[in-house]
């Protein structure tokens, strides 16, 4: 059954447009720049509208849109992007930040002092495979099974990448908080 332009537009407005915030947010996290995020959002939404006949009604429209976004980013934007510093995961000590702060700030109050830009910067500095799972889980709230499907990965890989991504990010933000004097590093 072929949809008329009007029907397609109506369906798209009802099912896809409510996710515009999520699309922009994900685009911003990937590009690190509001203007590039807007371009990527526009391109994603345009591709989605054109491919609307391929969307399975009743399935997860947000997951579908973010998959289009991610593929667009990988194919077109990443090539041009300058890669700055990255976190060397092998260099991360295999301990939990909690071990370090349990005596001085066991509730993790120091996190509240860290500004949003620093958080986004730290997320973008994660290696891509770790950033992907972290954004989809911790920002967008998808369950492991959905992330596995979106990224075409086994669930076990999603789990281990998420674990490592959170650790890496926690260490980066902890180091920043220590540097800024928000929390004292345990010296013993």
């Amino acid at each position: 059954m072929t949809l008329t332009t009007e029907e397609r537009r109506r369906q798209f407005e009802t099912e896809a447009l409510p996710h515009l915030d999520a699309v922009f947010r994900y685009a911003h996290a990937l590009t690190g720049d509001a203007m590039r995020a807007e371009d990527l959002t526009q391109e994603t939404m345009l591709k989605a509208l054109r491919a609307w006949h391929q969307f399975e009604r009743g399935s997860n429209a947000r997951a579908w849109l973010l998959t289009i976004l991610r593929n667009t980013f990988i194919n077109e934007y990443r090539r041009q992007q300058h890669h700055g510093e990255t976190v060397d995961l092998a260099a991360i000590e295999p301990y939990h930040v909690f071990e370090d702060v349990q005596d001085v700030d066991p509730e993790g109050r120091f996190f509240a002092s860290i500004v949003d830009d620093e958080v986004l910067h730290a997320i973008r500095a994660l290696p891509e495979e770790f950033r992907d799972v972290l954004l989809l889980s911790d920002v967008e709230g998808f369950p492991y099974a959905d992330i596995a499907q979106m990224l075409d990965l086994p669930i076990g890989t999603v789990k281990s990448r998420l674990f490592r991504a959170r650790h890496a990010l926690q260490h980066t933000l902890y180091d920043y908080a220590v540097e800024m004097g928000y929390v004292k590093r345990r010296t013993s």
Partner: protein
Amino acid sequence: MSDAPHSLDCREAIERLYEYLDQELTPDVRQEVERHLRMCGKCHQHFEFEQAFLRFLEARARGRGAGPEVKRRVLEQLFGTEDR
């Protein structure tokens, strides 16, 4: 087969920490974790720390939705281009 619940040690509980917080555990494993947390103050504190971290992350990284101007431009481009 014994009905006695398996008792997790600290290492086993910490290994399941994120799956617990992400609500990805089966009900029986979830209960095992909760049983351990009731008995172990340190792990309980550790879980709360990690939960605070995840809440912080969600709140801080979610702040940037598309503003009204961005939405307007996206819609204009979207249907303007399509209708031509």
